[in-house]
């Protein structure tokens, strides 16, 4: 990534993302909040692309913007009637939540900058505590490797059960690399089970009358 273009792109995308996130909180209309969330999620995908995580950014757009958000909008459509589109929050609640939110943000920002100052000493890169990258991943040149191959190819190999990433020494003293086949399968089955359960829960039923 061009060193001149990257900060400019970051500031543009980050400002848009943060502004949309704040607009989600501030807007009282639930349909508008969902729309602001759409732009915020899209901006997050842009941040992922900026960080070199192509597959994550593409998945973010496909799953979040194309799937989850559509689901949310349908939920709004099916439940929003009259008073539920705009639900007002009281002034006192706003003040309390703003104070708590700003305090929380202060704590997180201080932590972020203390972590960032550690990274800055190391040419912008963090290293595992107590070990240098070269000790942790001997003869690997992971950074160079990931620049030549796209991140999606490496991730796809990991999901197929091929060892990727830094090598660890196993009990026999041989280098081993992690693969992500089992977590991938668990997540797949989990998603299937959850979606069947959700379809069962949300199936069409006769509405009970007289309860408010």
């Amino acid at each position, binding site marked *: 990534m061009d060193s*001149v273009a990257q*900060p400019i792109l*970051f500031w543009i995308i*980050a400002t848009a*993302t*943060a502004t949309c*996130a*704040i607009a989600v*909180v501030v807007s009282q209309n*639930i349909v508008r*909040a969902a729309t602001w*969330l759409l732009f*915020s*999620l899209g901006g*997050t995908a842009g*941040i*992922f692309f900026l960080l*070199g995580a192509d*597959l*994550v950014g593409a*998945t973010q757009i496909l*799953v979040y913007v194309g799937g*989850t958000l559509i*689901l949310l909008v349908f939920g709004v459509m*099916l*439940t929003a009637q009259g008073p*539920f589109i705009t*639900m007002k929050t009281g002034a006192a609640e706003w003040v309390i*939540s*703003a104070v*708590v939110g*700003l305090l929380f*943000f202060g704590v*997180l*920002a201080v932590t*972020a*900058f203390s972590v*960032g100052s550690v*990274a800055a000493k190391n040419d*912008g*890169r963090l290293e595992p505590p107590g070990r240098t990258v070269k000790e942790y*991943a001997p003869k690997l040149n992971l*950074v160079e490797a990931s620049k030549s191959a796209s*991140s999606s190819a490496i*991730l796809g190999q*990991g999901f197929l059960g091929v060892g*990727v990433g830094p090598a660890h020494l196993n009990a026999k003293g041989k280098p081993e690399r*992690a693969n*992500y086949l089992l*977590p991938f399968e668990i*997540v797949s089955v*989990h*998603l299937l089970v959850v979606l069947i359960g*959700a379809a069962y*829960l*949300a199936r069409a039923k006769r*509405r*009970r009358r007289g*309860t*408010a």
Partner: protein
Amino acid sequence: MSPIGLEHYLTLAAILFVCGAVCMATKRNAIGVLIGVELVLNGANINLVAFAHFNPAFEIEGMTFALFVIVLAAAEAAVALAIVLNFYNNHTTVDVDTAEDLKG
């Protein structure tokens, strides 16, 4: 223009996280609470991918976990919306303040 470091990404993630938390706390619409959860998960995802980018030892892990978080967020949204629809069918409202059937 100064280069963008880890702290910039972490600060952006913190903004998203705090917005999500405040959204969860203040919105009375159940779907608004869900929107807050999505924002929080996105903030966490930015953290994961940023650390993956700036720490070469965690490059694969960070992106893998971010992908898992996205998939699990989709699953969570589906179940939560099913519950909200059921709640709406039973109570004809999505105001979370009225969900007090389990109050002791």
